């Protein structure tokens, strides 16, 4: 027994192509998020071209953006970051109820956000082809909405696994990595909301 434990003891640098500071799944998510930032940057370039380079009015004349509804939606999405943080803090302390309740709350808040955004598209009164501003509006919010959808898929998997008894105070990387992604989605929305609706 003791010999087996000694055999597994590892000294020196980590194995090849592995970091001793960051877990491989976390590093993968980090690199993925960096590529995502570049994709959003490309879409923001179109936005800034319209507003800064060509000095076009924002939004397009005759159109109006529902800042208040989107503001409430922002609060909903930010709340979902709080609940997923609570879920992770709970499992770190071994609190399975907090994990499950936090994940369900996060999923429902994310779903509410996406539903409100779809409802906004239905009632907003302009289409992507109507003006350059409309194209940029649908592109930025739609790109973000797609990320919310992917995030919801990941959250659903984490929630199901949580109810099946997965995760423990020692092993919860499977929910920590989607949690990092979810916070990234929220950060991007704060920036999208501010630039598209507020400023």
């Amino acid at each position: 027994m003791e010999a087996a434990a000694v055999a597994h003891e590892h000294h020196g640098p980590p194995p090849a192509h592995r970091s001793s500071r960051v877990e491989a799944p976390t590093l993968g998510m980090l690199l993925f998020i960096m590529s995502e930032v570049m994709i959003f940057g490309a879409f923001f370039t179109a936005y800034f071209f319209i507003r800064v380079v060509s000095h076009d009015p924002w939004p397009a004349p005759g159109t109006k953006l529902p800042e208040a509804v989107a503001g409430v939606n922002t609060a909903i999405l930010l709340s979902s970051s709080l609940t997923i943080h609570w879920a992770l803090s709970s499992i770190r302390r071994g609190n399975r109820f907090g994990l499950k309740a936090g994940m369900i709350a996060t999923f429902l808040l994310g779903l509410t956000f996406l539903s409100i955004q779809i409802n906004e598209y239905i009632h907003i009164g302009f289409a992507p082809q109507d003006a350059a501003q409309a194209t940029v509006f649908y592109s930025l919010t739609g790109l973000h909405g797609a990320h919310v959808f992917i995030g919801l898929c990941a959250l659903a998997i984490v929630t199901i696994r949580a109810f099946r008894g997965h995760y423990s105070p020692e092993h919860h990387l499977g929910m920590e990595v989607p949690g990092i992604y979810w916070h990234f989605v929220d950060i991007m929305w704060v920036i999208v909301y501010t630039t598209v609706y507020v400023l």
Partner: protein
Amino acid sequence: MAFNPLRSEADAFRVLVYVVVVVALIVAIVELVRAVS
């Protein structure tokens, strides 16, 4: 341990809080300048 924004969920959450605070400050400054000018 040194602060790394994306090493863990807790650090990513802190980044989110920082972003919200910074963006709120930027919006407040822009609105103030608009109101004054």
